[in-house]
Structures are given as C-alpha cells and as structure tokens.
C-alpha cells in the first residue's frame, strides 16, 4: 500500500514539473474563477447588511423614539392594526431595543463611528410593516399619517431605500455569478486538457503498464491526483486573493463618511473563513471533475 501511495505522489510531482506552463495556466484560471466565486459570496453578504432590515417583504419601518412611553408605542401599534386593507396585520413585527440594537450592529458593521453613538438605551425601536396592497401610493400616504403620531421618530419606506440597493445587489450577483460559472467551466476544461496532455506524454508508459497488468485505477490515480491538486492550488491562491481584496475593501470603506451606507458593505471574519473553506472545496472539485473526465476518456492508448 505504501509503495502505491509513494508511486502516485512521485508520478504526480514529476508530471507537474514536466507540464509546468500548462499546469500554471490551469492553476491560474481556476484561481481567478474561484476568486470571482468568492467575491460573489462576499458582495452578496455585504449587501445583506444593508438589506437585513427589509427582509421578509417589509416595505415600511416605523421608527419609535427611544424615549417614547409604552402608551405611545401601544397607540402606534393599534393605529397600524386599524388599516387591515393596506397592512398585513398578521405580519406586523415590533423590534424592542435589544433586537433593534442587534440589527443596527449589522447595518453599521463597517461604520464604528455611527455604531459608537448607538447604545441599547438610546436606539429607536421599530415596527416592521408588510403591506398587502400593491398600491405603493396608498402605503406612502399611510406613512405620511404615521409620521404625525406622537412618539414616532421617522417612517422609512422600502421604495426609497431598499429598491435601489436590492436591484443593484441582484445585478451584481447575476453578473459575477455568470462570470464565475463561465470561468469555472474554463478551468475544468484547462485542467482536463493538462491531464490529457500529461497522459499523452506518457502514453508509452501507460501502454506498458496495461501490458504488465496494472489496473486502470492504478494508472488513473496519479493523473486524477494531479488535477485535484491543480484545482486545490488554484483554490489556495484564490483564498489569498479574496483575503487581500477583502482587507483592502474593508480598510477602504472605513474612510467613507459615516451614514452613507457604503461603510456597511463589509463582512464578518467568520463568514470569510466559511468562504475560504468553500473555495478550497470547490477548487478540489473542479480539479477532480476535469481530471476524472480526462483520465476515464484517454486511458485507451
């Protein structure tokens, strides 16, 4: 068994050196493809920071002053419930101070200045409102009424804030996703080609191996390992790329004016580690697929 493993590793390494340029091309392509995949994840996650408060078809948020009395909050609540033809009263959600503070920490993730001004005591609480009508004007006019209620600090409409970001986020996601998919396919193709070339270069050896009774798997494994390794190395490179991009971005947006929203477009480090794991696994998968196709198709020499 040990002899087999040693053989496979030795052959893999030898082939790597023999086909250096092709290997480099395959590795770089998978790295770039995976980098784009990583960027897609990060961008998506960053946008979610801004979109989190609108999740679940929320179209209107009524912010309640932090010093509002319980009676005022109750009044706002009953006022909202008095318009069942416009508002889905089942889905009215009240976020108390703790919940609102937790949400704000995501929204202002990259904006320590704003964040430091907020405390669980001073933060406005909020009602999240899901309309049942399609009529945006009706919702807007209702929002106007709510602004005049005692204790209401502000009323935000999704139409004004959410739509643009949401559309932008969807657009960016679609573009990066398509680009990374295309590049992933190209990466599979390049790895396939590298392995095919490697097998062609060693066709005499493969012929002899088959002649003396080596099993197909024994012949295949070094080649498949080679492809897997190419994808994996591409994955490692892309991880460094994603990490570098993210660091540059995070320190870049930190200099933006607070409150513009841009500074919210950052991701927590825990999420970044998750993306790294995904990229490594995806890289290995790309390599495995490319080389498996090549190794199973070009064994008959």
């Amino acid at each position, binding site marked *: *068994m*040990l*002899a*087999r493993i040693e*053989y496979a590793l030795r052959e893999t390494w030898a082939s790597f050196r023999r086909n250096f340029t092709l290997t480099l091309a395959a590795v770089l392509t998978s790295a770039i493809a995976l980098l784009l995949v990583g960027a897609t994840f990060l961008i998506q996650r960053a946008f979610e920071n801004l979109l989190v408060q609108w999740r679940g078809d929320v179209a209107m948020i009524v912010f309640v002053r932090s010093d509002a009395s319980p009676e005022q909050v109750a009044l706002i609540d009953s006022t909202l419930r008095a318009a069942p033809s416009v508002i889905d009263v089942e889905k009215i959600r009240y976020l108390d101070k703790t919940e609102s503070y937790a949400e704000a920490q995501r929204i202002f993730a990259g904006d320590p200045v704003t964040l430091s001004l907020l405390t669980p005591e001073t933060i406005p609480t909020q009602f999240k409102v899901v309309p049942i009508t399609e009529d945006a004007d009706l919702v807007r006019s209702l929002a106007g009424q709510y602004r005049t209620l005692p204790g209401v600090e502000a009323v935000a409409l999704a139409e004004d804030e959410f739509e643009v970001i949401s559309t932008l986020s969807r657009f960016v996601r679609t573009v990066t996703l398509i680009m990374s998919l295309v590049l992933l396919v190209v990466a599979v193709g390049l790895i396939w080609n590298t392995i095919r070339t490697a097998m062609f270069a060693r066709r*005499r*050896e493969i*012929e*002899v*191996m*088959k*002649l*003396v*009774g*080596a*099993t*197909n798997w*024994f*012949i295949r494994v070094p080649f498949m390992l080679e492809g897997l390794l190419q994808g994996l190395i591409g994955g490692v490179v892309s991880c460094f790329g994603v990490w570098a991009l993210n660091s540059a971005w995070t320190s870049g947006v930190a200099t933006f004016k607070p409150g513009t929203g841009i500074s919210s477009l950052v991701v927590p480090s825990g999420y970044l580690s998750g993306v790294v794991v995904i990229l490594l696994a995806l890289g290995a998968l790309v390599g495995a697929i490319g080389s498996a196709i090549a190794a199973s198709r070009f064994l008959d020499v």
Partner: protein
Amino acid sequence: MIRLDGVTKIYGDDTVAVDQVSFEVAKGDFVFLVGQSGSGKSTLLRLMSREEIATEGDVWVAGRNLSEMAASRVPYLRRSLGNVFQDYKLLLNKTVFENVAFALEVIGKPRHVIREQVPIVLELVGLADKTERFPNQLSGGEQQRVSIARAFVNRPVILLADEPTGNLDPATSEGIMSLLEEINETGTTVVMATHDHRVVNTMRRRVIQLDRGVVVRDQERGVYE
C-alpha cells in the same frame, strides 16, 4: 494452458484476420506461430493477452475464458502473462533496472520484492553488469533481453512473443532464442510468432502455420516451409 475454439476475429466490418482457428497448447509447450505478414499471427497473440476480443469462438487462457472475462479482471490475467515485442517497448527515460522494476512496481509489489527479484532476472538474461544503462546505450539484442526480463520478472505461466528476433541479426537472434528456451525449461509456456526461418528450423519445436487467418499446418517438431 491455452485453448482456442473456433476463434474468428473480424476487424471493422469485413477484414477477417483470424478465421475459425482451433488449437490447444499444453503447459510447458514451446509453439511457433508462423506465416506471412497479415496471416493473423499477431492477432492470435493479441487475442491471448486480451488486447483484442474474439468476434466468434472462445479463447481459454490459464483456465479462463477471455471472451466472457470482465474488463476489470483483465489486469489480473496480464499478470500471469509475459509479453515480448519486436520493438521491445522499453521506456527510454528509465534504466535497465527501472524498466524491469516498473513491471513489478505498477502491480503494487513491495520494494523489497523488487530489490530481490530484479537482479535475479537481469542475471538470468545476462545483463547483470548493465543495470544502470539506459535503453539507448544498449544493442538491439540487449534491449530485447531487457524486455524479456521485464516479461519474466513476475514469473508468468505463459510468455507471448511477437517477432522477438525481427530486428536482430542471426547471431543475436540465437542468443535470444536460447534465452527463451531457458525460460521455457522453467515450465513457462512460450508462444512465439515469427517469420524467421532460421530460428524455427534450428529449434525444431511445434509449428502452427497460418495463411490468411486459417491454420494450414500444425506439426510437432516442425520446420518453416
């Protein structure tokens, strides 16, 4: 050891390489397959090592029916066969020792077996002093000896040789033939395709003559006609 039962091999749609061939080779036999180029000698050898599958009929080798053998079992069949070719099929980037060791390595033999067996076989073929040479540094006869060593190192029960003296001069051929004879004396069945008159006539072994895919003569202690 080998039995062919009404074996026909048709390449493509209508090229009949072997036509209704039947014969049996006993264990320890030494058999020449003779005939002109294209008479079907090589095809018969390829059928025996299952590089080809018979279109019709059964090929039995070492107790196994190759026509019904699953592709996944073929490597194990090949381990009980040794193959020798006119063009040696040596790996030019490997030394004599490595070429022979390769045959054991790729069937997963442990290193101590390789270190023990390869020198024994190289001694047998008379190349003990050239183990570190590369094929290009050897004469044709020496290269064929390496290829025989590679075929024999796993102690096959059958040795299939396709024109092993085809590229060699008479004197060198003689050396190769006595080596094959020596291997045959260890109990290995040898089947050799050739159109080398001299070799066949000196050896006086069983001769199976083919003509356009058909057996036209099967003679004990025969000569090339």
